[in-house]
């Protein structure tokens, strides 16, 4: 199945060139748009989009859940933004510098920024947000900012982060989605999780909340006092929560929605619409939410203690087949514990790969002392695919067929989400667990948790589920947490990728890619690494 999936639009491509970063997978450019004239943005108009499920809160400082990740950056700014390739650019902070020893990071804040209620934004807000909110209530912030000892505020427009040890990953996690800055004057001294402002956001962001119907819709209106002069271009963004994916497709096709972000359409519908001249498919702009589909081996099971069994299983699964037929081309065959969007660190050089080779798989199983029995079966296993989306279940069905050929009988167990989470990470009552998880803007944020032995924490979802423990890997991961030299850090992660793929406690199945599909008239929705998970301030409608 060969499809032209990577039709990058001109703006994305030029923006990519401008920052001298090659976009991975840019294998084809649609000729029509590549040579179009540059257009001046037009002000006004309403952008309608659809998503599911509905949101609980309106800011992502107190949760890492998906719906909030999309909404938060519209209402709240972060200290930084990111160009393609996760290159830092100014947002609420205009300048930043890291001290020699890496333990002090100084941010110069943008003057004249106002909260939606008219109060002035100051360094107090920054100090409050990091110390009282992100360090305490944010799922990833708790570990990411664990060594943040204080935020000093010598004046209203300077914030100095004082760190116990250097934290290079921190600078990749300061956008309005990962670390939105909350107003201290609204939140200080209150119960943060239950503050009414969690559903009536007061931010500094490009849009303000106009109305919210719980579980049905969110209407955002332009913030006329936004610090980025002249932006946003749109008057309003309407987000409707639509549970049925086919209905979302019908809405886009009928023009009742203008654009759909984050793979909220079925892959086949996305491809069908992308083939029509009125629609445009963009796969860039999801660098902060890069996700892998991966399969954990439960290393507490006797059978998986032998690496040969894990290798045999890897040789039996054609990951490219899963990319083509399960993900319909929206992904790359799994080759590393990292995601290819983590461009600075991702590598396959010297990293063991396990090409489809059933004969080799059988030989490895024989060698490991698991001969075929009288009925041709070597042993029996159970796989638990996540019920989140159908990709894991479909992939599990393929894996069952592959296993049958090498003499492993695989049972697929389906359950609802609550049971799945509890079984795999609390009860640890599984053999193989197949799911999709976010790898983070930096490997320290998103990848480390699956391989670090200190993160083997039964009861915590999406922790080290295989119960993998390798002191060498631990040392590499811990060193990379505090390594300021990018080259050394790259070497540490290269070594980590080699070892992780040799030990193979977790099999990376697919590095997924995400898609935005919208009408051609919607312009400039994806201008940097954050894409639709940014503030959409550059987005405009032509016509």
């Amino acid at each position, binding site marked *: 199945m060969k499809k032209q999936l990577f039709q990058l639009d001109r703006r994305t491509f030029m923006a990519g060139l401008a920052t001298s970063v090659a976009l991975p997978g840019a294998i084809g450019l649609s000729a029509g748009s590549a040579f179009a004239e540059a257009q001046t943005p037009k002000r006004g108009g*309403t952008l*309608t989009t*659809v998503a599911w*499920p*509905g949101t*609980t*809160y309106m800011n992502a400082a107190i*949760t*890492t*859940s*998906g719906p909030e990740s999309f909404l938060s950056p519209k209402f709240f700014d972060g200290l930084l933004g990111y160009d393609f390739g996760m290159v830092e650019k100014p947002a609420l902070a205009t300048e930043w510098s890291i001290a020699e020893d890496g333990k002090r990071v100084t941010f110069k804040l943008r003057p004249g920024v106002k909260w939606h209620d008219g109060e002035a934004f100051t360094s107090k807000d920054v100090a409050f947000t990091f110390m009282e909110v992100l360090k305490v209530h944010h*799922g*990833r912030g*708790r570990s990411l900012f664990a060594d943040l000892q204080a935020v000093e505020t010598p004046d209203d427009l300077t914030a100095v982060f004082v760190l116990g040890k250097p934290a290079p990953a921190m600078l990749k996690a300061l956008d309005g989605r990962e670390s939105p800055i909350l107003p201290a004057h609204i939140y200080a001294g209150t119960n943060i999780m239950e503050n009414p402002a*969690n*559903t009536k956001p007061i931010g500094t962001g490009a849009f303000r909340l*106009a*109305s919210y*119907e*719980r*579980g*049905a*819709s969110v*209407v955002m209106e332009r913030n006329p006092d936004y610090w980025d002069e002249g932006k946003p271009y749109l008057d*309003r963004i*309407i987000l*409707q*929560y*639509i*549970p*049925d994916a*086919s*209905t979302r497709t*019908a*809405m886009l*096709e*009928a*023009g*009742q929605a203008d654009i759909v972000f984050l793979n909220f359409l079925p892959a086949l519908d996305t491809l069908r619409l992308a083939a029509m001249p009125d629609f445009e498919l963009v796969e860039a702009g999801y660098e902060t939410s890069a996700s892998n589909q991966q399969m954990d081996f439960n290393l507490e099971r006797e059978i998986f203690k032998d690496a040969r069994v894990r290798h045999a299983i890897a040789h039996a699964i054609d990951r490219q087949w899963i990319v083509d037929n399960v993900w319909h081309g929206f992904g790359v065959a799994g080759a590393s514990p990292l995601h290819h969007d983590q461009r600075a660190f991702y590598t396959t050089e010297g990293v063991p790969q396990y090409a489809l080779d059933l004969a080799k798989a059988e030989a490895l199983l024989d060698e490991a002392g698991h001969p075929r029995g009288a009925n041709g079966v070597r042993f029996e296993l159970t796989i638990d695919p996540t019920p989140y989306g159908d990709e894991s279940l479909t992939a599990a069905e393929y894996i069952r067929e592959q296993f049958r050929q090498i003499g492993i009988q695989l049972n697929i167990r389906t359950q*609802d*989400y*609550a*049971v*799945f*989470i*509890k*079984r795999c990470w*609390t009860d640890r009552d599984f053999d193989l667990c197949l799911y999709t998880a976010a790898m983070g803007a930096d490997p320290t944020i998103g990848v480390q948790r699956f391989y670090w032995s200190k993160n083997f*924490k039964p*009861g*915590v*979802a*999406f922790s080290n589920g295989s119960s993998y423990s390798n002191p060498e890997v631990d040392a590499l991961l811990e060193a990379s947490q505090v390594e300021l030299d990018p080259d050394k850090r790259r070497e540490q992660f290269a070594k980590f990728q080699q070892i992780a793929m040799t030990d193979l406690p977790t099999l990376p199945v697919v590095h997924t890619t995400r898609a935005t599909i919208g009408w051609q008239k919607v312009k400039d929705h994806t201008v940097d690494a954050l894409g639709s998970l940014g503030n959409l301030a550059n987005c405009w409608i032509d016509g």
Partner: protein
Amino acid sequence: MPRYVLRRLSQAVLVMLLVVIGSFFLVKMAPGDLVDVLAGNSDMTADQMASLRVRYGLDQPVLVQLFIYMSRLVMLDFGYSPLNAAPVLDVIMGRWPVTAILVVSSVVISMTVGTVLGVISARNAGNPIDLSISILMLVLYATPSFVIAICFILFFSVFLGAMPIAGFATVGTQATGFAYAWDVVKHLAMPVAALCTFYVAIYGRIGRASMLEVLKLDYVRTARAKGLPERRVIYVHALRNALLPLVTMAGLQVSALVGGAVLIETIFGLPGMGRTAFDAVFERDTNLLLGVLFISSLSVVVVNFVIDLLYMALDPRVELA
């Protein structure tokens, strides 16, 4: 009559108690709880999960949880829905009107259309008109409502571009009065029609049979003998008696639709009671689920009471005791 009301009231309380307690145990029997779902959606430490369990009372034994819930319910406190970050009552109040309009309009429309078709069929029993209506009924009866819903969307919205697909009203407009009402009508036309089709067939079949039976009765012959116009004989004398089984069906339809329109609510993106209950089950949001079930069973009980009164109005021989 007062004795009747009292008896019905005590029955209603019993029914609702059974519904709430029964569903409470059903939800608790399912493995995993709300905190597992929250932790799966958002990174959490074990400490945080434990403190959330304490906050939502999930650390208590199941019977204690039930006792706490019931004692709050007596004060009409439905509790808090963590996944909506709002009190359960607020969530339900936002969704109740959607379901109410959906149910009432589909009951009224399907009953009217079905009855008329049934009467026409009965009057033309055996001839081609009856046959074609019967075939139509069979098709409506056999086609699942979600298939009809999808066909509607593809034809009226995607192909013709005439009808709004999802939601209760256009989002973000400030329309009021007639303009708003018209907007709602346009949004609900397809879902209501899709909910109606099956019931039109049911009412049609029941109406036809019951009409045929009534038309054979002596009093109808008397009415005709008196020289009353046929129209009056059919629609006044005969129909009133033929309506009784249809009213019973209406009671069943209301009960079925209050929580059972999940598919249609899902397809048309209508945040109604059915969809809310459905999601609450998977999110293990016990408070919200029980709140929805409580309000739904309350309305079913009320509707059935009204239907009993209707019986009495239609047929004075029926006594409520």
